[in-house]
């Protein structure tokens, strides 16, 4: 099933390229089919608490002589992220259905879009570290092309900057993976990139620290966290709308996923040493990001920085090493993906109507687009963390969790709630309120656009009122992660806990 999902995406991408006239339909079909597949496995799993085994697992030979295999496996957490990826991917296809910016070479656009979705999906499935890295980098290529071919004015600079940052940081992770592989091989004689195998590696504290640093560098850049966010505003602003949504909504989440799935379980001891610094980075990110967002005069940049600010919550949540915070982080991953996609889609729709994203050119749009304004309001409110919407539960749990361990930092981070409100209201008020800057009769939301936004709105409310589904689905993962915070547990024992809970059934 997992390979099916990937194959459908990759083959669908090729088909889009070959049959450009039908690319929108092919893309819809491919992603939609996958979505159905994924939901059909995820939904039941969210009902019942799982016993720590994978829901689906597949393994094929890849580079047997190196101990690398195509090992794909998903649990509730990965499946959740996959469902999310496919959902936003599908909506991304729909929102750019009539987008003039991608009218040229549309088939090729959908090829990249589908491969991007495929890469992200692969990241959430890979249980072989080399394969993980492979998908990790694979995501970059279509993203790079999406930006550099269909991007905005500054697309060249933006795409290259994005690629350089993520590539450099990724290489550090590769080094860490290789070192782990070799160390494990030298200790046990078994050279393997397999996640379950490598979990048991015992490392000296300093070595574990270096390796963790390698992993974290990749994740913090991709997320991005302070001070590695320099690529973000350019890449987010310049990419086409569907790309921006996937970039901000999902690609950043792969980093959070990587931390939860790989960085923390692989180096539980070192994580404790890193946690205070990471928390500091997270909190600085929250506040600094909010400050930058507030200062922007371009709507897309503003949203980009708001995303950066929210990523600070994720860093804070992960490294507070608390159960509540883990749940919060996962919810934030989902909720933020939805809300930021909604905001970027919104910018895309506005851009199609007024051909720019400068805030000074906007104002009073409520008069001509009350429906769009209403929908925009939902996402603005999600962004500022209004209860009832998914982001609130997530941020509440993150902060409540972080508070258990770090009162001071949490209080500082909570200031981000105020700051978040300040910049979020700018979106609503500068765009839809105020004096009418230009007449846009008949500019209100179109049916297809409405469908897309309605899906997001429904999901974000669903998350706000029924987060239990998600909490239940990721429960085993959170339970695993919880062990990390149990410092009393000796290293070896802790490893066994992970190994037992994540070791797969025999293949």
């Amino acid at each position: 099933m997992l390979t099916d999902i990937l194959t459908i995406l990759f083959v669908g991408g090729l088909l889009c390229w070959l049959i450009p006239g039908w690319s929108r339909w092919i893309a819809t079909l491919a992603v939609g089919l996958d979505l159905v597949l994924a939901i059909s496995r995820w939904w039941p799993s969210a009902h019942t608490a799982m016993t720590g085994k994978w829901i689906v697992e597949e393994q094929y030979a890849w580079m047997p002589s190196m101990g690398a295999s195509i090992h794909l496996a998903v649990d509730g957490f990965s499946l959740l992220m996959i469902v999310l990826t496919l959902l936003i991917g599908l909506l991304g296809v729909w929102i750019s259905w009539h987008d003039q910016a991608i009218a040229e070479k549309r088939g090729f656009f959908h090829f990249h879009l589908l491969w991007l979705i495929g890469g992200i999906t692969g990241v959430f499935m890979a249980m072989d570290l080399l394969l993980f890295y492979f998908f990790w980098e694979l995501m970059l290529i279509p993203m790079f092309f999406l930006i550099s071919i269909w991007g905005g004015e500054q697309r060249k600079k933006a795409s290259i900057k994005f690629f350089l940052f993520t590539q450099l940081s990724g290489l550090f992770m590769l080094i860490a993976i290789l070192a782990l592989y070799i160390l494990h091989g030298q200790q046990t004689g078994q050279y393997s990139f397999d996640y379950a195998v490598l979990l048991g590696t015992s490392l000296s504290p300093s070595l574990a620290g270096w390796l963790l640093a390698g992993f974290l560098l990749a994740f913090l850049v991709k997320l991005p966290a302070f001070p590695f966010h320099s690529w973000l505003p350019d890449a987010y602003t310049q990419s086409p709308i569907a790309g921006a949504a996937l970039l901000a909504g999902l690609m950043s989440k792969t980093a959070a996923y990587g931390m939860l799935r790989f960085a923390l379980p692989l180096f539980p001891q070192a994580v404790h040493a890193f946690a205070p610094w990471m928390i500091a980075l997270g909190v600085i990110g929250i506040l600094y990001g909010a400050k930058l967002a507030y200062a922007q005069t371009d709507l897309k940049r503003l949203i980009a920085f708001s995303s950066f600010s929210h990523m600070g919550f994720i860093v804070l949540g992960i490294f507070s090493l608390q159960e509540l915070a883990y749940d919060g982080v996962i919810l934030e991953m989902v909720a933020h993906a939805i809300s930021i996609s909604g905001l970027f889609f919104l910018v895309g729709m506005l851009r199609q109507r007024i051909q720019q994203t400068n805030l000074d050119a906007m104002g009073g749009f409520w008069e001509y687009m009350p429906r769009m304004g209403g929908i925009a309001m939902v996402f603005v409110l999600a962004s500022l963390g209004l209860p009832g919407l998914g982001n609130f539960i997530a941020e509440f749990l993150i902060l409540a969790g972080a508070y258990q361990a770090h009162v001071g930092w949490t209080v500082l981070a909570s200031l981000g709630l105020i700051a978040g409100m300040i910049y979020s209201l700018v979106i609503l008020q500068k765009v839809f309120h105020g004096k009418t800057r230009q007449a846009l009769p008949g500019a209100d939301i179109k049916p297809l656009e409405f469908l897309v936004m309605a899906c997001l709105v429904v999901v974000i409310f669903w998350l706000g009122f029924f987060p239990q589904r998600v909490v239940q689905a990721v429960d085993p993962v959170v339970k695993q992660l919880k062990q990390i915070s149990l410092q009393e547990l000796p290293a070896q024992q802790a490893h066994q806990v992970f190994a037992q809970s994540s070791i797969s059934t025999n293949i």
Partner: protein
Amino acid sequence: MWHQQVIPALFPQIILSVAAVVCMLLIAVKRNHAVVHLFTLLSLLLALGSLGRIPGVMGVDGLFVVDGLGVFMTGLILITAFFIGIFSYPYFSQSVLEREEYYILLLLATLGASLMVISNHFISFFLSLEILSVSLYGMIAYTKTSTVATEAGVKYLMLAAVSSAILLFGIGLMYVATGQLGLSGIGRQAVYTPTSGWFTAGLGLVLAGLGFKLALVPFHLWTPDVYSGAPAPTSAFVATISKGSVFVFLWRLFDSIGRDERMVIIFVVIAVASMLIGNWLALKQQNLKRLLAYSSIAHLGYLIVAFVAAGDRGLDAAIFYLVAYFISMLGAFGLISYLTESGKEKLLLQDYTGLFWQRPALAILLSLIMLSLAGIPLTAGFIGKFYVLLAGVYSAQWLLVMVLILSSVIGLFYYLRVVVQLFSRPDHAVYFPRSPYAISTGMAFLVLFILLIWLGIAPGNLITQIQQVVHLARG
């Protein structure tokens, strides 16, 4: 010693020598580009096919050793030469000059390279090197009406001659110190006289000579000039076969005499300098061929990382890397050859603006090549770099590994610059010629494309192959 089986072991080289002579005769009978071209390709294929008849590891009079490494590299060289042969046809068919002799030189240069990879003795090495070099002089300056080609030829000739002299002087000193010219003999002797001043001095000079051929910093300055001046197929040859074969000999040499600690330091310095300076030089380069030249400097630096890492892992890595690098470079220069219009190459990056919008397939191939050179997944270059990193980490060469990472990111910048250029929308109408001889070239591109991807996604087979070959050599 000299018995029946030696003949099959040297079949490829024999076939190439005979083919060169026959080629000459063909031209004497009637100048026909197509015939000579086809003959060259066929003889390369024949030589390739004859590889299968090689019985096993065997030494030939101490001069040559036909082992797994040698056979594999010979095969690689022949295939590469085959591709270069294909790319030469459209390139030279537009030329008004006599073009048939180029194929003689190509065959001879290939012969030199294929001899070098099985050389186990300084005499045979020297001979093969000279066969290679002298043919290359001709190939570089082949378009004799072109000032740049001639200039490149003269520069290469003078520098190669000087470096040959340095190399020879170094070999001489080593000979004086050990009384041996065979690598295994020197290796045996070197164990007893490792600190002999003359020996070390000689080794240093040999290193400089080899470094020149490999275009390692600080012997790299000729590279961009020669690449950009020479006809594109020749540049491909210089970038791939000539470097690959010398690299193999370098490996054999140091496998015999052992990697002295001081030597390792020298190599580390050279590798670091090559990686960094190569990439720095390419950073703002606007001429695609020069850019590829600088990139090749950096790539040889990466190879030296594998070299320093040593051992089976290092050799595996180096060979895989060479394969990936060959494919990428071949594709790049092949494209340049293909897009050459009546002898005028498209050199500047801006000449390629908007290639995607006109010839998407070519643009995608070139982008893929750039990504492969940059070592991005999905491409062979990624597995190559991954392998080299693995070797580096395994041997705990942290400095090299870190420099590799940093410099490869510097490198990524200019590769992406090329890619972005291909995809940017042109301000004015651009025209990219459709060569009338597109079928064979197109097929070649397709094969390269598939190889790039296939090795990037499923390198398992090749890795196993290489490992077997390498173990065969040691076996």
